[in-house]
């Protein structure tokens, strides 16, 4: 694939998680449950997660799909990657890769963003979202819940729900359409 020139260099967010790798993996690829580390969204996929499967990060009420994508890599319990498109922005999809490496005190967990279009809202969103996701994810895996600050933020998100753009409504992003986005 020819890399588009207008992309930013990849970014890496890395954290150590004190839990067995299977536990980290199963939290990461959980579907049909509220994911505090993913801004309280629910990961939906028509069948089950695997390469080529469409994914939609849906609000718990099912009304909006703010992020959609297609699974690019699914190698339990080490690697999971999917394309990532904010439905509220016109930008083309970027790629998010999660890597899990077992260490002596748990798991080294990395979130890597690549192919992010430069100078876009997507770039800003990834830069703000990356640290939130990894640290909230660590807390969810280790303690079963999001840290206090993140919970306050999640509450704020729930208040913002009425302002979600129409473009993000779930009916605009069925799985067939998501699969036409391409990698």
């Amino acid at each position, binding site marked *: 694939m020819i890399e588009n020139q207008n992309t930013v*260099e990849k970014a890496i967010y890395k954290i150590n998680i004190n839990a067995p790798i299977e536990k980290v993996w199963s939290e990461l690829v959980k579907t049909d449950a509220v994911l505090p580390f993913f801004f309280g969204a629910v990961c939906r996929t028509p069948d089950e997660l695997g390469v080529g499967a469409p994914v939609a990060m849906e609000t718990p009420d099912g009304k909006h799909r703010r992020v959609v994508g297609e699974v690019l890599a699914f190698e339990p319990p080490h690697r999971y990657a999917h394309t990532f498109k904010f439905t509220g922005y016109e930008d083309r999809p970027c790629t998010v890769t999660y890597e899990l490496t077992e260490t002596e005190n748990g798991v080294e967990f990395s979130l890597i963003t690549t192919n992010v279009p430069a100078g876009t809202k997507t770039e800003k969103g990834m830069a703000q979202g990356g640290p939130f996701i990894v640290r909230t994810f660590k807390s969810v895996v280790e303690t079963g819940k999001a840290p206090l*600050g993140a919970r306050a933020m999640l509450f704020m998100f729930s208040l913002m729900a009425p302002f979600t753009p129409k473009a993000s409504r779930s009916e605009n992003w069925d799985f067939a359409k998501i699969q036409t986005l391409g990698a």
Partner: protein
Amino acid sequence: MITNERMDNVFHALAHENRRRILDELRNAPGISVGRLASNFDVSRIAVMNHLAVLEAAGLIVSERDGRTRRLYLNVVPIQMIYDRWTDDYSGYFASRLTAIKYAAEGAEKKEGKND
């Protein structure tokens, strides 16, 4: 939570101007090679390598092999965890209002070492 030992490593790594400048360089040019990074500093390549080892031990940088080149990336997460320890969204909101006023009044760039 972040262990005290890990936090010691982070503060130790941040307690040196050249190491903070290395993080500036990595933020401005993610994926920069060790050679190019070292050429931006007046100190020896060995000294830069030693700083990189300290930063890497603290988890502040991630390095990746790309053929014969070692590429470096800033990992902002340990700094976020320092912030998380003492700040929440409420105090963070007002604290950032204050710093925003300071930066505006002083005409200062919020991010030191940012080259744009």
